[in-house]
């Protein structure tokens, strides 16, 4: 029995979500009186995971797995889980983890619960809290299978450092051509931007920005905060911004530490998508905008005047707190 984690990396370097799932897994392992094993694929420094509570790393080094391939990764993690006799497998809520987890669940005949936001309420029966109805509610969900798969929401648990060191063991999963029947031919990714899924801070713009030509202001604000940029549904529908930035019930859910909404009135579908964010700031010239009811801090004012000032004040703050 152990707790297994899939720890994601980008070009060999672990993502923050990898450390978060490791930290979370360590707490579960403590609850169950067992240890944490991580699976890595072509990671540069697997031993680094020890800092976040991982006891053992099964390190896969295989050129065929340089690009994420969901079925191959799911099969490899499944084999690792069987080898370790894992009773719990923890993955993140990234697009890749959500892609592979259902296939892994079939592989292991395991109950899978996504969007988990807290440590299990109890281990017997095994009950976890997850979001449902696009953050309009929580569900306490019982998993009755022997092996359980948990998909941890981003930024739900945070990082917990540990004093321990991880041992690293080479692991060679048995893969077949069928594992690569979906083959990636190209990846189009903005490497200099923070993605919404990883972001601790998200700056989002709405129709109040009046046009795509005014997005430089949102990008500048995001840049000073190290934030991802996002938008409301009408903005992506009008083609001002790509669909991938649309936040809301039919777009992306956001669970950042800070969400700044500029010129977004706050339709119920948008609010559902950002409910899980911890601190919400709204800048809007309409004092009746429903978003103010959901916000922690608000400024009623013209975004074209407020945002440049905010950028300046944040730059000053950064300079004084560097």
């Amino acid at each position, binding site marked *: 029995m152990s707790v297994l984690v899939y720890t994601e990396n980008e070009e060999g370097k672990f993502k923050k979500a990898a450390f978060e799932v490791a930290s979370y897994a360590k707490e579960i392992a403590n609850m169950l009186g067992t240890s944490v094993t991580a699976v890595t694929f072509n990671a540069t420094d697997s031993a680094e995971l020890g800092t976040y509570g991982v006891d053992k790393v099964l390190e896969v080094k295989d050129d065929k797995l340089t690009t994420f391939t969901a*079925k191959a990764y799911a099969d490899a993690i499944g084999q690792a889980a069987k080898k370790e006799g894992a009773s719990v497998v923890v993955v993140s809520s990234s697009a890749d983890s959500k892609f592979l987890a259902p296939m892994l669940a079939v592989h292991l005949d395991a109950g899978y619960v996504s969007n988990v936001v807290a440590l299990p309420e109890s281990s017997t029966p095994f009950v976890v809290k997850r979001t449902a109805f696009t953050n309009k509610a929580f569900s306490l969900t019982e998993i009755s299978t022997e092996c359980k798969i948990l998909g941890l929401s981003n930024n739900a648990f945070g990082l917990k450092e540990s004093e321990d060191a991880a041992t690293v063991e080479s692991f060679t999963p048995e893969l077949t051509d069928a594992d690569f029947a979906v083959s990636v031919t190209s990846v189009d990714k903005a490497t200099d931007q923070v993605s919404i899924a990883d972001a601790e801070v998200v700056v989002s713009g709405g129709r109040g920005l009046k046009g795509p030509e005014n997005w430089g202001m949102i990008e500048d604000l995001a840049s000073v905060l190290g934030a991802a940029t996002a938008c409301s549904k009408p903005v992506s529908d009008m083609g001002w911004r790509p669909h991938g930035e649309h936040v809301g019930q039919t777009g992306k859910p956001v669970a950042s530490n800070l969400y700044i909404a500029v010129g977004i009135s706050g339709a119920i579908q948008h609010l559902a998508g950002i409910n899980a964010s911890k601190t919400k700031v709204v800048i809007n010239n309409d004092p009746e905008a429903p978003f103010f009811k959901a916000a922690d801090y608000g400024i009623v004012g013209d975004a074209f005047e407020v945002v440049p000032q905010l950028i300046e004040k944040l730059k000053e703050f950064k300079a004084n707190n560097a």
Partner: protein
Amino acid sequence: MKILVCISHVPDTTSKINFTEEDTKFDTNGVQFVINPNDEFGLTRAMWFKEKQGASVDVVNVGGPETEPTLRKSLAIGADNAIRVNANPTDGFYVAKQLAKVVQDGGYDLVIAGRESIDYNGGMVPGMLAALIDANFVNTCIGLEIEGETVTAIREIDGGKETSKTSLPLVIGGQKGLVEESDLRIPNMRGIMMARKKPLNVVEPVEASEETKAQKFEKPVPKGEVTLIPADDVGKLVDLLHNEAKAI
């Protein structure tokens, strides 16, 4: 090409969410149900294949008789046949097992499901279905082209998109981007009249165990009052974000 589109019957996106029976059941009172938006993008893409490349399109839902208006709406949009698996779905794995039987019985080449339903947001049915029937699978699919044996699929990844080549049989978890919002179809009177004559087959479920179960629901704690900051004192916001919210 035989296409199956999986349709979830979900509360409209504007619905207020409440629970009954000591917070163990979703309160459907006064709630308008619709085709799951992610499925609607998929259904529209299936119509495109039907009209441009020649395909038959069936729709399926796992649910009780109350979901039939949603299936009829799918027929009015242009699907050829509807199938309802007569069961009360409680768990994604259970639904995937029911759908696997429908796909195997119907010999479908392409199954289009939404990446997740907007009610329980499990996001597991398409991937589990693909694994159960040993089909190829692409999740968060925002582009799909099929030329003979070759499938080109585009999926959304964190911070961008990725293009893959694969083959049929294929299951996709689709979403916005698969077609444009403006391409979504509203059933017209002719479609609604024709839908009444189209077959809606009810099949009984296969036996499958429940692996996860929602024991209880909770609503988020109501938020306190917003702290309003004068527009000419933006520095105060920076101060509050740092000292009070600890967000920067």
